[in-house]
């Protein structure tokens, strides 16, 4: 078992004919993802390497029975794309797009939070259930099928984490990049809950960073509910306050959202907090071994 994404999950790609969308559609198919359709308004009826293109998400869902969508459209059109997917029967929306205005995401978030839809991202690498399928832009080959769930606000730091685990022969059930923006569809808590409920996930790695309070909220949840071992790292201990560190959401403002604060809350919750990002894998290995 994995969470969110299985081999049978039918996926469409919004923005399939764009440069990002087309490149990653082929990568996803090569990895084994069931990409059943694409959406580019005005190009309906054509195909992309044998994948049928539709004018609207509704058409694509009707024809293909897809339940998941990968969004690769440019930032100015991404909010619209998310709402189109949510209102056309898609249940899992993975928005890769970076640079969506926060105001747009506030509106989108407050509409879809009352719907039966899960949004991952935006500004994220996506989801991969190793050996089964991926929706996103992560390099498939570093992953290994297994029993540790990974959740992160970052892209390449997630790959770093996964590689450390795979090198120690620790596979992953699913790896989820929730995104580096201030407004994201799913928080640590949402995904950690899924990992906790998944009988096949035996441990969880959470990779946070400065800014916001999502890690603190997750820590409180973990303390109360999660019995599986959790390893945590927070990037940005050396980041200066008031500066946006690449990600729109990675900023310490008004003295809030520091790495020290987050690490303290996580330690208090019984999470194995690592000081060095080089020790994420080995710490998970020790945590798993000590339970055998």
């Amino acid at each position, binding site marked *: 078992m994995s969470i969110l994404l299985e081999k049978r999950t039918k996926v469409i790609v919004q923005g399939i004919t764009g440069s990002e969308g087309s*490149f990653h559609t082929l990568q996803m198919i090569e990895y084994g993802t069931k990409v059943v359709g694409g959406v580019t308004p005005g190009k309906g009826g054509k195909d992309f390497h044998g994948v049928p293109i539709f004018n609207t998400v509704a058409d694509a869902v009707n024809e293909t029975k897809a339940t998941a969508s990968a969004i690769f459209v440019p*930032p*100015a059109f991404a909010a619209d794309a998310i709402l189109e997917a949510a209102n056309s029967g898609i249940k899992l929306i993975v928005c890769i797009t970076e640079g*969506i*205005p*926060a*105001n*747009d*995401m*506030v*509106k989108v978030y*407050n*509409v879809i*939070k009352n719907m039966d839809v899960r949004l991952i991202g935006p500004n994220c690498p996506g989801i991969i259930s190793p050996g089964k399928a991926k929706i996103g*832009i*992560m*390099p498939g080959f*570093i992953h290994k099928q297994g029993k540790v769930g990974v959740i*992160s*606000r*970052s*892209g*390449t*730091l*997630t*790959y*770093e984490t996964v*590689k*450390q685990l795979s090198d120690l022969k620790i596979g992953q059930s699913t790896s989820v990049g929730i995104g580096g923006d*201030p*407004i994201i569809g799913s928080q640590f808590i949402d995904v950690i809950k899924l990992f906790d409920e998944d009988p096949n996930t035996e441990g969880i790695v959470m*990779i946070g960073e*400065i*800014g*916001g*309070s999502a890690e603190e*909220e997750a820590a409180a949840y973990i303390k109360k509910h999660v019995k599986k071992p959790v390893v945590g*790292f927070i*990037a*940005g*201990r*050396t*980041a*200066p306050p*008031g*500066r946006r*560190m*690449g*990600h*729109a*959401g*990675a900023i310490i403002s*008004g*003295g809030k959202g520091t*790495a020290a604060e987050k690490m303290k809350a996580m330690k208090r919750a019984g999470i194995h907090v690592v*000081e*060095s*990002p*080089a*020790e994420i894998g080995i710490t998970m290995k020790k945590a798993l071994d000590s339970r055998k």
Partner: protein
Amino acid sequence: MKIHEYQAKEILRKYNVPVPEGHVAYTVDGAVQAAKEIKGKVKVVKAQIHAGGRGKGGGVKVAKGIPEVRKYAKKILGMNLVTHQTGPEGRIVKRLLIEQGMNIAKELYVGITLDRHQSRNVVMVSTEGGMEIEKVAAETPEKILKETIDPAVGLQAYQARKLAFGLGLSGVQFKNAVKFLLSLYKAFDDTDATIAEINPLVVTKEGDVIALDAKMNFDDNAMYRHRDILTYRDLDEEDPLEIEASKYQLNYIKLDGNVGCMVNGAGLAMATMDIIKLAGGEPANFLDVGGTANKETVASGFKIILTDPKVKAILINIFGGIVRCDRVAQGVIDAVNQIKVEIPIIIRLDGTNAEEAAALLEKSKMNFEVAANLKEAAEKVTAVLAK
């Protein structure tokens, strides 16, 4: 994106948010001229820099008459203004705002920003105007009143009334405050602001409600639809190296340490800075080269890092996903050949084509310290610094 106070007030004026009469000035004569055009005897001379705490730093003076305007303008223009937000190096004042003096009865606070926890905007008011709001929030949180805004409908009149009553206002002051809040929210929402802070918001003895100060920041991601606000950008307020870096799509932030770093991805870049610190160094910068780590971007990254004489070593940490490590390695070799880097370079390339990359670095016979993983990279940083 940040703008100056006088620019924020220009925006607010367009949205019918009351602000004092005022003009920007770049010279002492300009300041005097501006003062003459403003009604009333008392004027305020305000330094315009992108940082708060200007009053405490000596950048805001009340002038009783034109001679004093000239005196203060002379004093403030060109001064190196140090506030808690500028850091010890301070900021040179190049612009002044000359404003009419106000007959202040009460100083209040209003701020609008995004509440990430609720994923909604929040309007905050407080009777503790003129104080640092973080301090109020920490010491007397009950003195901050908040209303959360439904993005579908915006700030509603009943919410504005609740806030205005909460501030203890009545009569004409109350009416004006409600109008003020509704107009301010519209300005915030229409312009894709990330913060609109009026501190202090003043109530005058005549009952007017006026933004005595105004701070607005904007969402960089939304600036494509606000060309008018983009013209407010003041390059003098930005680090020249950061401007240079942005020309090459590099995301660079200068820090104060001795080990430079070049990384792909913001999260990994922060983690790399952290590991430099753990290895006994101090990060000299944040630098995310993004998805295209090629010869050009790597070369410009080197150039920017090397302008800082304090840098004793450079750590390159690239995790190749879509980016192929062998291309990055070739980029590094070409860049080093081109610009003669004389300090130690520690390279860690992992992911796609990492082995081919290692072979290229080996074959180059250059003096790279090649690390197989993050742990080794940290150890090599420690070793290099110990030499």
